[in-house]
């Protein structure tokens, strides 16, 4: 998960975003994934606003989760006033393989 460089170029504990940005594979944390019904979505953007990882992608007339980072918390589904987001168990997608 954490990539360690061989040597620290600083004298003390300094991090440098230009050198190394860390990132967790939070897309693998999910047990359920949000599935957006484009027909029901009225593009109100509440799901995008409340999404903790801010990973709802604006598709110009609807939103869809970036599954690389979506942890599957379900807030988008809960907050959607139109019930356009459904949390579907990941098992339903297992046959698609590791690729998301």
């Amino acid at each position, binding site marked *: 998960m*954490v*990539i*360690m*460089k061989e040597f*620290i*170029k*600083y004298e003390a*504990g*300094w*991090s*440098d*975003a230009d*050198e*190394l*940005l*860390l*990132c*967790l*594979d*939070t*897309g693998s*944390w*999910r047990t359920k994934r949000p599935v957006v019904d484009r*027909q*029901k*979505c*009225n*593009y*109100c*953007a*509440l799901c995008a*606003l*409340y*999404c*903790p*990882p*801010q*990973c709802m992608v604006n598709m110009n*007339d609807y939103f869809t989760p*970036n599954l*690389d*980072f979506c*942890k*599957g*918390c*379900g*807030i988008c*589904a*809960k*907050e959607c006033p*139109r019930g356009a987001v459904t*949390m579907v168990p990941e098992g339903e997608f297992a046959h698609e393989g590791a690729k998301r």
Partner: protein
Amino acid sequence: MVQKAKKLPRVFDYFRDEDQFVGGLAFCAGCPLELALRILSKVLGRETVLVGTPSCSAPVIHGQNIGTWHRLPYYGCLMTGVPSSATGLARYYRKVGKDVNVVCFTGDGCAADVGFQPLSGAAERNEHFIYICYDNEGYMNTGIQRSSTTPRGAATTTTPVGVAGRGKETSAKNLPLIMAMHRPSYVATATLSHLEDFVKKLLKAEEKRKEGFVYIHVFIPCAVGWGIESDSTIQVSRMAVRTNYFPLWEAENGKFRLTHTVATPKPITEYTKLIRKFRHLTEEELARLQEEVNSNFAFLRHLTEFGGGESPSNAEG
């Protein structure tokens, strides 16, 4: 085909920068803390130096060796040193003529307990920086122990419920009010359910820190520590406001104002029933909690009347 909204909510207009954090962060699923940090970075932008400490946010604010999780400059310090380190940074930047948002970001354990003395000191000196306390009502990072902002009756790992134990036996410390009593430049409370309110307060904070100390107390329900579903943290935040358990207010130079009023507050049980840490409470105990909520709110009301600050009329049911 549904009628599509023509415009995105106003909150989007306040974002001046893109999210400064990487996509995959070490926050629990559904934690509003992650939302708070990402929104903060979008609203305050890159001219921000974060100051933080070991806590739930630490694995994200602070990097590991030379790696980091975001593009904001940050200063990681010990639990007792956050407001004082920020003082050092803000004073030095001022000395060399740099205008920087120095923003402390800590939990209630640091702010209300082990790091309270320097917080009080910095507020009294009216230092020019922003202190954001995210209140999850306990020491969540170390395993859900009680803090001084844990509410009466709540079960934690150090106030467990058993034959003799009934959860925390004392009231929560009202930290935002305590901070307001220092009469700094600006104090406000916020929740992630009321995002526009939160964002406006961040922007005001940026202005007011040029005059002096700014404190924002953000309500952060902890899915794991409180016993709520990951998808319900925003809902719980909203209910905390609707029951007046966590009223939204601000105090500018000592003048108090409610930024959001609730016309008919819901009973506290509407809030507690969503949260497992309260589920052992008897009717009597719940009545006592309700009394506390009522009297806290009445006190706040009085303060807004003294201060002459006007409260909005956009009452919510």
